């Protein structure tokens, strides 16, 4: 894996969500991840992109989503940002508790966390930045500790 970074600025549409998902699938595969991990990465990216378009930018034609992929050699680092109202993670309930299990929504961030080794959410002013890390050879605990 050689280090490189590529970034896309996309309209707030469902088509952009599909573009983000497909690009993630392609770049994950190029970065050497196996089929299962490519799928996990592309699903996490899809969830982040849906949130950016739907909850963040609310399909506003004047607001863009950006998605950046960086291959650090040890990991694929993917950053999805929007220009929306901001996400307060402390207010996002656990979708697997009995009282939330049969709710229709609320599983997006949970799935990102399940599929990636690390998910960091940061408030911009305005907007939200979601950074997702997938290590080349499974969860690297020391790396996780170091980046906290």
């Amino acid at each position, binding site marked *: 894996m050689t280090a490189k970074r590529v970034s896309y600025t996309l309209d707030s549409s469902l088509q952009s969500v599909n573009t983000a998902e497909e690009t993630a699938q392609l770049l994950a595969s190029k970065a050497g991840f196996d089929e299962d991990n490519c799928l996990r990465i592309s699903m996490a990216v899809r969830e982040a992109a849906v949130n950016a378009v*739907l*909850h963040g930018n*609310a*399909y*506003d*034609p*004047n*607001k863009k989503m950006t998605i950046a992929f960086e291959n650090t050699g040890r990991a694929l680092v993917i950053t999805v940002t929007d220009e929306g*109202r901001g996400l*307060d993670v402390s*207010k996002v*309930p656990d979708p697997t508790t009995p009282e939330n299990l049969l709710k229709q929504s609320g599983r997006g961030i949970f799935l990102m966390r399940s599929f990636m080794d690390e998910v960091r959410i940061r408030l911009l002013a305005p907007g939200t930045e979601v950074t997702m890390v997938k290590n080349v050879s499974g969860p690297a605990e020391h790396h996780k500790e170091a980046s906290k």
Partner: protein
Amino acid sequence: MSMKSITRQVDGITIVDLSGRITLGEGSVVLRDIVRDLVTKGQRKILLNLGDVTYIDSSGIGELVSAFTTVRNQGGELKLLNLTKKVHDLLQITKLYTVFDVKDDEATAVAAFK
């Protein structure tokens, strides 16, 4: 084009001033997110000020209904403030006007919460 919102507290009531369009895509998800956030934070008395809402479609109406039932199911109250003629007519046509508690003065609305 899209919806904007400002949330403020008056005498223990959460007033959400909405402006713009509450339609599929643009405003309806935002409205849902706002109401869910308030309920998660424990707010149970919510007044939606629709005075500057310019357009609502069937998806927006659905979001208003579902905000209403969400808050009510948590033992709370959601009222509407300052309907424009358009929005008033829309609620009449869909027979929802009597479902909502609609006020046209903020002080009266705030005082009407239990």
